């Protein structure tokens, strides 16, 4: 740890009464301003999608677009829901995400743990091998994996959708970074007490790394939920398709797409993940890591 003792400059009591509190309020005000600005800049396009879902195609195409729809109605949502079997899509997305992300999260945790706390010769080479997996673009593996899955007779099945994407590299990487910051004495204490690796993982590492695990879980779920190209390729019938693929069902060949319906469909995909995100926020909460590590 770097040396943090620096200059011995101190504030006088006089200064602190005026300057200190003033600056603190200033900081808060600036903070709110900044937050507001960021939300605005990032959020406006998102708001457009929301309002687009409530508009008619004509409104969306108009040359004087308004943010707020003239006659907000849920027609687009109804049309989108009816355009394709979205209830089936929801179920398929739920299943593939549950198992896919579930497998990913478990493997990320165990792999990262092993890379940091379990002895193995040339462990760092394994880590680099893992990184290599991040360098293979999706497009490259699409067709070979299709052929592999077809060879196993799993085209248009749940395992066919889940398996090729189940392995995880970035989440493992993230957790590894996190785990490396965990002080070794914590681990040693547990090992000295006779805990095997699994127990150490369960009782010591995971609680401490909760924010990182929650973040990894969240990102993994988000990615799996939004996966498009692979499920598109590996499914042939509507009843096996996932939500993002269902959205493309709403697009038209000759450019006559009803964009309001597409945006409504997009919200079908987005809203569940947003809810999960809001819920998962409380795991990325102040102090869990801090308190647990040093306390």
């Amino acid at each position, binding site marked *: 740890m770097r040396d943090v003792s620096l200059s011995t400059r101190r504030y006088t009591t006089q200064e602190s009464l005026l300057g200190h509190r003033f600056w603190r309020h200033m900081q808060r005000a600036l903070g709110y301003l900044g937050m507001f600005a960021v939300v605005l800049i990032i959020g406006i396009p998102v708001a457009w999608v929301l309002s687009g879902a409530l508009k008619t*195609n*004509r409104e969306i*195409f*108009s*040359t004087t677009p308004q943010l707020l729809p003239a006659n907000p109605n849920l027609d687009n949502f109804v049309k989108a829901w009816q*355009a394709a079997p979205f209830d089936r899509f929801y179920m398929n997305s739920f299943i593939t995400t*549950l*198992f896919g*992300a*579930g*497998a990913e*999260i*478990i493997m990320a945790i165990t792999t990262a743990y092993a890379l940091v706390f379990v002895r193995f010769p040339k462990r760092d080479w394994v880590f680099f091998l893992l990184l290599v997996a991040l360098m293979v673009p999706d497009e490259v593996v*699409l*067709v070979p994996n*299709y*052929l592999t899955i*077809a*060879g196993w*007779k*799993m*085209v*248009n*099945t*749940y*395992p*066919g959708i*889940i*398996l090729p994407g*189940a392995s995880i590299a970035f989440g493992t990487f993230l957790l590894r970074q996190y785990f490396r910051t965990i002080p070794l004495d914590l681990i040693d204490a547990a090992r000295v007490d006779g805990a095997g690796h699994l127990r150490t993982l369960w009782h010591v590492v*995971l*609680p401490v790394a*909760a924010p990182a*695990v929650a973040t990894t*879980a969240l990102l993994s779920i988000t990615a799996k939920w939004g996966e498009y190209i692979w499920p*598109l*390729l590996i499914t*042939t*019938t*509507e*009843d*096996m398709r996932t939500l993002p693929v269902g959205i*493309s*069902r*709403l*697009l*038209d*060949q*000759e*450019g*006559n*797409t*009803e964009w309001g319906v597409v945006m409504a469909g997009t919200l079908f995909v987005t809203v569940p993940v947003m809810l999960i995100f809001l819920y998962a926020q409380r*795991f990325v909460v102040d*102090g*869990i890591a801090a*308190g*647990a590590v040093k*306390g």
Partner: protein
Amino acid sequence: MNKRNQTISRRKLLKGMGIGAGALALAACAVPQATQAPAAPASGEPTAAPAPTTAPASSGPVEIIYWGFSGGLGKVEEQLINMWNEKQSEVKVTPQVQGNYEETAQKLTAALAAQQGPDMVLLSDVWWFKFYRAKALMPLNDLLKEQQIDTTDFVESLWNEGVRKGVQYWVPFARSTPIFYYNADMLEAAGLPVRGPETWDEMREWAPKLVKKEGDTMKVAAFAHPGAASYVAWLFQCVIRQFGGRYSDQDFNIKLTESDSIRAGQFYQDTVNKEGWAIASKDVTKDFVTGLAATAMLSTAALAGVLREAQFKVGTAFLPKEKFFNCCTGGSGLAILATTPMEKARAAMKYIDYATGNEGGAFWPQNTGYMPVRKSTAKSESYQKFFEQVPQARTAVEQLPLTEAQDAARVFIPGGDQIIGKGLERILISNEPVEKVFTEVKATLEQEAEPVKRDLAALG
């Protein structure tokens, strides 16, 4: 306090992970989901099984898997297929949506590589040839004869495009041509005759009156060009021929650098740069429909959507002439895969007969904007009634006899459409000298044509 925090969060983590723990186990031993019957052929067994001798009539209809349109067009196609399925009980067509033309072609490639695939497929004008070259399509002459389909009733230019060495592989179904769309209200307001321009020179006269500027920027253009990805090369194909040039002949001799071809390219460039009444647009249909472009060349298949969205009177006309009149074909057609068992192939042909015939083949175009592919359909009574309701639909049908099949360079060279399209973008957007660009495009096209020529020679 901290400890309690730990336990609570751990418990929640536990819950979350417990679910995930079951995940791997279940995923490993999950039985491949057996979906409903339709999926079976495409998902597991190789479809190359030899067909049984005769289909016992009592065992139900012959089922065909078909990969066709998606989106709004897909919905109409679904209606067509339902009409067919309900009308008779010998053949049941089961559509499986795979996406747009490109996505369907990709899926088909992958499926064929894995030796699976549908029985019947919809392929666009630039994609069907690739599968023909790979010997993936079934020759249809015998099936056509068996089904007693009158092939002379089909519009020649549409029919012949799918014929190789006297054998038909690709039956026209959703065929389109470019037509000239104009904003009747805008023309009237500008004091111009409310019709399409007869020649491009006439268009040049009209254009400045249609342009609306805001300061230095053009707010409303007289005409809009699409980009390469939106098939500008398809539209330009007609224009270049109107000027007397072409992309190529049927033997892949590229003719882009002939003087007339270059003249056409120069014209295109001038519309945007020197004369400044056209724009290179991101979405031509949208620009036209929202009144940002007074005229445009678009596929006739966009008609239904345009009529629905436009809030002005829409007019359609033949393409303008230059030295000549020319209009090319486009769209997609139906093909049967070579691996389809004969029984299913016969069933497929029955459907193809219906979909292109006077009943299905009238319903389809009327609800989409594509053209009737048989001459008798266009003359039929129901169609005449349709014309009365939607007079704009006449244009494409009347223009049809004057159309010509497309150049080999665009439809037979893989990526040909995009190669030419990107060259056109350089001309329209980057204002590069036309001759230089066309020379480079020619070189690329010739290079890409090599393997095609080889394959064709090998196919005999």
